[in-house]
């Protein structure tokens, strides 16, 4: 696949979106989540380097564009104590990726890093270091955080208002870009970078030259209107929570509009939704496998704990195979440790809704929680050939540029995807048959940022 299909976009005008006709894969090695099955005998360690090595090398064998790691800033809690039931324990993203850089050759290495509890000059330097040691394969998945609960682990504490998080994030990202852009020639020297903002001041003379891909690729994960516009202005790739076909097409339209409004081309920002794959040789086997996966993801204790987050109280007296608790939730107390979409005032209303829904459908606690938590929208279940056909349709329309896969088993969770799904996709001509170059920017078919006259960097297609 030496001829990148994105070249087609040159046929149209920059304000017309042109599907690439291709699907890319990324893999998200999750260190903290309820989706990873640890109860199966074949489940391995979540922190051993060998788990990371195996998944990264398998992904590279399957020509995945990128390997992603999350960032941990505070351990999740449940009813005021660390949460005991899910996989937990997450090495530092960039340290782990630097190590993986030495045992991989091509795959992109993406570190999720927040803009609130990092310092811009330090983070930019570390990302530039990762980009150089990996030969131009680094990326930054930009996230925002703004709560005092997380801030309790940091010198600054909880200093940032929720309303300011994107404003703050954007100033942070622009400062990082200026740092990466400050190296005048291959031999230096660097220009001094100054930033004086509401929350911090940066005065730094950067130390590192540009990498083979110019600077780290930028991913962004927010899905609110502010998050989408921020991505349209700043990012190369956006994660979205819109993997179902119609939803994905809508999201693409919205993002194209926002990109054009930001003065960038219609194809400037790529889309890679998070997804889960449950695959087997036949549809029946895949369905059976899905039952097995779900039963291990949501055991009786997980089902009760899930409700406890929303009820804000202990519910261990309830039978996971019985109806939802008739007892009302605690409403006065809310915190970051409870469900993310949950706020106190809504608690009783939500409980009423859920009780009614479960009763209507005749679901037990466990069945109900499974229906709520299983990533139904983001799960592709089926035979290898059927799922390959489905993904080919996404590629044809350009609904997405790829999928970011969360394996439900560590470290063998990509094996069937790489061994069976990837060849099916390659046969259909919608998946790369070799890496396009040596950098992540090249794998994704992104154009290199270009330096403008005043030293600022603008997207080539802008």
């Amino acid at each position, binding site marked *: 696949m030496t001829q990148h299909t994105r070249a087609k976009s040159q046929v149209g005008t920059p304000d017309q979106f042109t599907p690439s006709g291709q699907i890319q894969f990324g893999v998200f090695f999750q260190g903290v989540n309820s989706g990873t099955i640890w109860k199966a005998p074949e489940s391995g360690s979540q922190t051993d380097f060998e788990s990371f090595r195996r998944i990264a090398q398998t992904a590279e064998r399957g020509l995945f564009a990128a390997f992603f790691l999350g960032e941990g800033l*505070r351990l999740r809690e449940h009813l005021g104590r660390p949460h005991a039931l899910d996989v937990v324990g997450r090495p530092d993203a960039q*340290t*782990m990726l630097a190590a993986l850089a*030495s045992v991989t050759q091509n795959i992109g290495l993406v570190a999720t890093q927040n803009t609130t509890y990092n310092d811009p000059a330090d983070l930019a330097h570390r990302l530039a270091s990762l980009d150089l040691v*990996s030969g131009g394969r680094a990326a930054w998945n930009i996230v925002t955080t703004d709560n005092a609960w997380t801030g309790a*682990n940091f010198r600054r504490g909880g200093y940032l208002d929720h309303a300011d998080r994107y404003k703050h994030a954007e100033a942070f990202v622009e400062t990082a870009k200026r740092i990466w852009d400050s190296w005048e020639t291959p031999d230096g020297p660097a220009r001094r970078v100054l930033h004086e903002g509401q929350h911090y001041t940066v005065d730094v003379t950067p130390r*590192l030259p540009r990498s083979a891909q110019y600077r780290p690729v930028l991913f962004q994960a927010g899905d609110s209107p502010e998050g989408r516009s921020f991505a349209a202005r700043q990012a190369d790739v956006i994660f979205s929570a819109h993997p179902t076909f119609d939803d994905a097409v809508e999201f693409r339209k919205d993002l194209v509009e926002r990109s054009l409004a930001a003065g960038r081309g219609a194809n400037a920002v790529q889309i890679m939704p998070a997804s889960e794959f449950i695959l087997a040789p036949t549809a029946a086997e895949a369905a059976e496998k899905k039952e097995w996966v779900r039963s291990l993801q949501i055991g009786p204790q997980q089902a009760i704990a899930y409700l406890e987050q929303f009820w804000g109280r202990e519910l261990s007296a309830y039978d996971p195979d019985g109806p939802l608790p008739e007892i009302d939730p605690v409403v006065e107390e809310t915190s970051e440790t409870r469900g993310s979409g949950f706020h106190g005032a809504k608690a009783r209303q939500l409980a009423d809704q859920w009780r009614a829904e479960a009763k209507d459908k005749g679901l037990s606690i466990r069945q109900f929680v499974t229906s709520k938590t299983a990533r139904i929208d983001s799960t592709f279940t089926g035979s290898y050939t059927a799922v390959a056909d489905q993904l080919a349709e996404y590629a044809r329309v350009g609904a997405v540029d790829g999928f970011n896969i969360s394996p439900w088993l560590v470290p063998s969770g990509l094996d069937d995807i790489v061994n069976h799904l990837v060849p099916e996709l390659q046969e259909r001509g919608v998946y790369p048959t070799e890496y396009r170059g040596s950098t992540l920017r090249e794998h994704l078919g992104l154009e290199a940022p270009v330096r403008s006259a005043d030293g600022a960097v603008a997207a080539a297609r802008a």
Partner: protein
Amino acid sequence: MSTFENPGFLAIELDGAGWDGADLTRAVLAAESAGFHAATFTDAPAPGRANALQRAAFAGPVSRTIALVPEVDTVYTEPFHISTQLASLDYVSGGRAGWIVTAAEAPGAAAAVGRSVVTGAALGQEAAASIEVSRRLWDSWEDDAVIRDVATGRYIDVDKLHYVDFRTPAGFAGPGYSVKGPSIIPRPLQGQLPVLAPASLIGGVPVEAVDAVLVSAPTPELLAAEVRDVRARVGAGVVVVAELDLVLDARGQAAAARGASFDGGRAAFAGSAASLTDFLADLLKEADGVRLHPASLFVDLEELGRLVLPELRRRRALRPVVQDGTFRDLLGLDRPASRYATAAAAPAGAGK
């Protein structure tokens, strides 16, 4: 004190291998095959110098025996991040990680994060606080906290995780802060990473807080005496490492003619491999280890590997290199129990 009955170790500073992955691999493998026990990675700001901890992490999976010890600043870097990054380095190196504590007195480092410059005694306070935060976080998961108990559905035993509730002490010179914990990563493979600090910080940093001190002197002649002085100050429980710049006769060129310049404020040795061998053999009778800073990494490393280390080993001045050993093993340190361990009383000195 190191004698031929109690041989020492050699560390080499790998600055000069640059940021390129291939160069880093070549450097760490050359140092490992030459028989060095540890590789260090300086992090002082300099054009072209990539982050030390990431260079060390890159070297982790491609090496097997050599300890990987980056410098990490304690004044302008977030303690929670430092702790996690170093614990992660221990994972990717199979327990071969250490930490050289630095306390930057650099206006540039302060300006980069928008803080005022920290100087004097406050440097030691900042360093001491960061070390304490890291050590508490490393202990905050007891060794057996991950239980994967299918019957109860519990992945971790919550009773074996601990909030560290660190607060900077009264009289702390800089802006005080607190860190809640626990860590977001299980306890490092070594339990606690060995912490090395320059002797100049000891005092501000309590000697109990470190595992090893790095000793500098203005000239090679003064180095052994300085090592003795520092050992008297820090006591027998702390490893003493001498710092030495060097430039060797190499490739038909005399050391003096190689035009090396050093600015680390350390003793600098210039001469033949044979005279360096004699010098190190004597120095290793006083110091537990020596950290070498070669003028030109690959040129001097070749001479060291070919001529110096084999002869030191023949004279039994060097400890054996241990396959799959930890950095603590090399330094002769036990693996400590977590300070929070509830199962049994922690042994004395478990704070390290």
